[in-house]
């Protein structure tokens, strides 16, 4: 029987299609988390008020921010989940090597992030509708043009994608050595604690500012893509010698 020659990119595409079908479970968790996020957002994400004599007022801010934060966490956890053995071994039942498996995972996470970005946009509107029904007098701060909507969805997707890359690296570290699941939270919490000791959160603040203050979409894409590809690259290098069903 003659040998078959295969092309890596071809296999990546096949695996990507396979994963879209077989990782459906992550989208049902997305919906549940989204409903939770809408529920939490109903109280408003910020509030201010005041009074003078017999007159008092209260202003609630409603935004999709909380939904985005929840989706970022979702992305982080989803990425960790697909680095676990159960998911990695599914690949090995068919044609694969480590690299094609990673690339199809990244492609899957990009699509999942964009999809989650879209749902952030949609559900933040859903809950504005709910607040309307609840008889809150509301003022829409942002009116959206189609271009703004597209930008918003891509931006949200990018932030979620950044978190998938962190999750992927964390997941791979844990797969490499279970001790990381114990030490990584300690390091993170410890670093936050040390960072906030002098009542000004310097490092974490500047890290988040680096990403959040970016108003140009093209620059944001470059910033997030370069950082997340760095994380993914590191995860790929880490897993190079990993065995299957050892």
């Amino acid at each position: 029987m003659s040998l078959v020659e295969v092309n890596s990119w071809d296999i990546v595409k096949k695996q990507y299609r396979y994963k879209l079908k077989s990782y459906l479970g992550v989208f049902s968790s997305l919906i549940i988390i989204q409903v939770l996020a809408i529920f939490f957002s109903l109280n408003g994400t910020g509030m201010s008020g005041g009074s003078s004599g017999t007159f008092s007022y209260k202003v609630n801010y409603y935004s999709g921010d909380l939904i985005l934060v929840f989706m970022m966490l979702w992305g982080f956890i989803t990425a960790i989940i697909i680095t676990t053995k159960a998911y990695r071994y599914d690949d090995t039942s068919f044609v694969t090597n480590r690299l094609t498996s990673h690339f199809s995972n990244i492609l899957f996470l990009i699509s999942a992030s964009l999809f989650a970005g879209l749902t952030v946009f949609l559900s933040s509107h859903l809950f504005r509708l709910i607040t309307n029904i609840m008889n809150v007098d509301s003022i829409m701060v942002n009116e959206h043009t189609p271009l703004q909507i597209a930008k918003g969805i891509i931006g949200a997707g990018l932030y979620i994608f950044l978190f998938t890359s962190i999750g992927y690296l964390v997941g791979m570290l844990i797969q490499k050595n279970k001790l990381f699941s114990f030490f990584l939270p300690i390091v993170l919490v410890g670093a936050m604690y040390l960072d906030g000791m002098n009542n000004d959160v310097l490092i974490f603040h500047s890290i988040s500012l680096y990403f959040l203050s970016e108003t140009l979409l093209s620059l944001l894409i470059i910033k997030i893509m370069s950082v997340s590809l760095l994380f993914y690259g590191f995860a790929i290098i880490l897993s190079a010698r990993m065995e299957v069903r050892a």
Partner: protein
Amino acid sequence: MKVVECKNLTKQYGRVKAVNDLTFTLAENKITGLVGRNGAGKTTLLKMIAGYLHHNSGNIQVFSENPFNNLKVSANTIFIDNSMSFSPALTLGQLLETAGEFYVNWDKNLANRLFKYFSLNPDQSHVNLSKGNKSTFNMIIGLAAHCPLTIFDEPTSGMDAGTRKDFYRALLKDYIAHPRTIILSSHLLEEIEDILEDILLIKNGEKLLHISVAELKEYAIGITGKTDRINQWLSNRERIFTHEIGNDDSYVVIKNECSSSELEEAREIGMRISQVSTEDICMHLTSKSKGGIDHVFSRG
């Protein structure tokens, strides 16, 4: 062409050598049986060939390439065992379709016919199958993939007798129609010896024998008779197996190297010479001690 070539191959788990200094080659389009006791290193060896595990020392080549993490080897090899995992989100029918996308030589017709014959339900999920049906489904994938190197690691575990027979028959028929290199590991040699051409016998990760089945059938003879006479006649000959029958009779298995005059002499002094089945030869060769399980109880 050599499909698999191992040279001084060693794989360690901690300090234990699961595969130890193994050297052998498998030629193209042959069915080889990998035989050994539990823990002999069969699965470790097969996983190294399939590219799942990397070796510690020595050299392994599959299709003249290092199989570990190798896409070409993965595309031309299929490794079937009972811990294959498939996504629970897909039904069996969808899994067959997916397999068809990945494996270029996939025989859709064969897969569907086997699937129907074993009356599997295309809407079921792989995780909900019984152990035997899981093995059956994996076997269908293994056969229909028509990979130039097809590896079955204990493929029949959990299958009932009827399904096992059907599987071996299907394997043989498909092999004749589409000759390819097949490695079959099992500890039930009796069942598979009819379809095997070669046997690779390993013990404690080391190679004991790599010969054809025909040669293995002639490998040893059994001698029954009075213990003292046997001892006298055998003198320094190496015994593969000794078993005492009653107080003064013995059954001894030795390598089949005696000349016909020697055997004639043995018959004259009242010993019976018998054939030893391949299953017994392998069992005796790989047994932990020469006395067998009786030894454990005789020390009292």
